[in-house]
């Protein structure tokens, strides 16, 4: 059967649509709660997909991803606390709008802009992904090794203040990925005679520990803190004239978001900064930005949701995650025996089309749920921590156990929660560690295979044209943080120039 028809048949059925909707609702709910990020939403809720088929699981996770990125704007507008880092700029104009009694309108603009941003990025994903994947089919071991190193160069962008600490985290991640049977020689490595380690560490409990439990442990110091939402939510659906006024800003911001999303490591936060800056610079009333102007909400929201389609491009075509969320998504694909990359286009094209369709539908659901459920999500934000935290901890435990019905995985999750919490306090970022865990096996196996192929000649890693191309862009990626810093500094200068 034609893969497009097959994908439509897979996705357009009541059960799958319901799962996608549930994913979107779950993502929005978690993303809207300050302190609980979209990354955490994907990490914890991955456990809900174990009993599902691959397509069901992918749909749920796409829903969570899209919903989680959007959900951050709700708390940003109502509380002036961005639910996720990518909603920082949304708070600048969203909260002043809420204070003026326009909370409903701000949520409506944020939802519609997020929807349009997401849809525009899906169009680019559909057009761009097949071209990249055809190119990627020419890869062999040296190219894959160079590609893995290129993927790891994202560390430069997700390392926070210290590149050294980012590299340390990545090295620890690669080391963790080496636990278990060596794929080339079959030797058991770092198993310490523990039966449960012979097949390596289970990815999901590890992620839940690093991103779920460690975040909760950070919050446990302030468990008494809880904020009440008292904003009145009305007139959520934006008028046609307002949408017409915002259309240019939304399209420009969506293009910025898609482009930045496709750059590994750049992500929603920088996209929303760049789009906000662009909207302000091109506005006829730049002085109104920061005082509650609809363009100030539409620009960052269109951009951060547009990064989803952009970020799916390197994930699907090269199997390289652009950030922590897509790294967890790759892990989830693998749990369901799907390896993102060019071979997925060749062997399972229907899955690729299903991802396109699922992302578009997730955006549509996000629009409906966001507009219809604004009042409900506003109440969810006010759920006290002394109820919310125990429920999340329960999900962490049950989710870890459910991976393979093994109590050992609960221990792994708790251990990595402690490790994540400790490393966070030592200013070691978590995202590079996840990249190391995901890309470690790819880098190691292909490095060793390439060296075996070339009988130990290291030059094979650099001299083949495609490999050389990746080494060049790796160097460019390592230089990218300096450019990014300048870009952000310039954006902030413009924003604070008031």
């Amino acid at each position: 059967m034609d893969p497009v028809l097959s994908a439509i048949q897979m996705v357009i059925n009541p059960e799958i649509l319901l799962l996608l909707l549930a994913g979107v609702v779950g993502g929005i709910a978690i993303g809207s709660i300050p302190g609980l990020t979209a990354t955490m939403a994907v990490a914890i809720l991955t456990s809900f997909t174990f009993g599902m088929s691959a397509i069901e699981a992918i749909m749920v996770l796409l829903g969570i991803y899209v919903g989680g990125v959007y959900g951050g704007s709700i708390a940003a507008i109502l509380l002036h606390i961005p639910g996720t880092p990518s909603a920082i700029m949304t708070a600048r104009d969203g909260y002043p709008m809420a204070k003026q009694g326009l909370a409903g309108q701000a949520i409506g603009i944020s939802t519609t802009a997020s929807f349009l941003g997401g849809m525009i990025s899906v169009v680019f994903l559909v057009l761009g992904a097949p071209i990249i994947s055809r190119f990627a089919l020419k890869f062999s071991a040296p190219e894959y090794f160079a590609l893995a190193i290129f993927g790891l160069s994202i560390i430069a962008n997700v390392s926070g203040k210290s590149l050294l600490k980012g590299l340390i985290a990545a090295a620890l991640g690669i080391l963790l990925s080496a636990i278990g049977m060596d794929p080339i020689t079959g030797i058991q490595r770092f198993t310490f005679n523990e039966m449960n380690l012979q097949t390596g560490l289970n990815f999901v409990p590890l992620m839940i520990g690093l991103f779920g439990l460690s975040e909760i442990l950070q919050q446990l110091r302030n468990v008494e803190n809880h904020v009440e939402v008292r904003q009145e939510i009305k007139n959520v659906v934006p008028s046609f004239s307002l949408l017409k006024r915002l259309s240019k800003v939304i399209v420009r911001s969506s293009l910025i978001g898609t482009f930045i999303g496709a750059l590994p490591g750049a992500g929603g936060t920088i996209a929303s900064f760049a789009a906000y800056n662009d909207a302000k610079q091109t506005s006829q009333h730049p002085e109104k930005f920061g005082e509650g102007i609809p363009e100030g909400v539409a620009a960052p929201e269109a951009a951060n949701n547009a990064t989803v389609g952009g970020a799916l491009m390197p994930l699907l075509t090269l199997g390289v995650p652009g950030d922590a969320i897509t790294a967890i998504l790759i892990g989830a694909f693998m749990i369901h025996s799907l390896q993102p990359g060019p071979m997925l286009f060749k062997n399972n094209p229907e899955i690729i089309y299903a991802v396109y369709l699922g992302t578009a539908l997730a955006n549509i659901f996000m629009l409906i749920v966001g507009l219809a459920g604004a009042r409900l999500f506003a109440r969810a934000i006010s759920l006290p921590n002394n109820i919310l935290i125990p429920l999340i901890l329960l999900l962490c435990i049950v989710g870890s156990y459910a991976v393979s019905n093994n109590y050992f995985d609960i221990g792994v999750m708790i251990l990595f929660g402690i490790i994540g919490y400790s490393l966070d306090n030592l200013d070691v970022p978590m995202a590079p560690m996840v990249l190391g865990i995901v890309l470690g096996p790819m880098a190691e196996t292909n490095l060793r295979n390439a060296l075996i192929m070339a009988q130990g000649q290291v030059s094979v890693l650099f001299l083949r044209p495609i490999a050389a191309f990746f080494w060049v862009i790796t160097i460019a990626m390592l230089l990218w943080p300096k450019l990014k810093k300048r870009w952000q500094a310039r954006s902030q200068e413009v924003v604070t120039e008031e």
Partner: protein
Amino acid sequence: MNKDRLLALILLIVSAVTFYETAKFPELSNDLQVVDAGFVPKLLALFLTISAGILIYRSYRISTEKIVISLKDSGIIRIGLVLIIMALYGYFLPLIGYELGTVIFLGVLMIIFRLNNWFKIVGISVAAMLAIYYIFIVSLKVPLPLKFL
């Protein structure tokens, strides 16, 4: 203790364990020796050792924040208590079952987090236990250790 020095110490321990373990890997034929199972782990351990050195050197040149762990800090006590309760829940899960274990687990945590309304504590614990039961066991067919349901 200085944050960077503590991190350096951890890295040195990880490197030492890695070198020790890789030394125990069996010898292979000539072709595979260059890229044996310990090749990449040894490279990483070397990198971590060098990084530890840089961190120690840097800690004497640039003053970094100190990390203080005090048992008088209520946050630390709460974290420790939560981790112990989680470990106990995981340990006793096969013995007392998911239903009772979950209600006790949630109830105890809510009490620790100063929720004083008994009606809420019991109601939320039972409702959450049933919700997870329905999602994981009934809908997704993921087995959990049951005793009563």
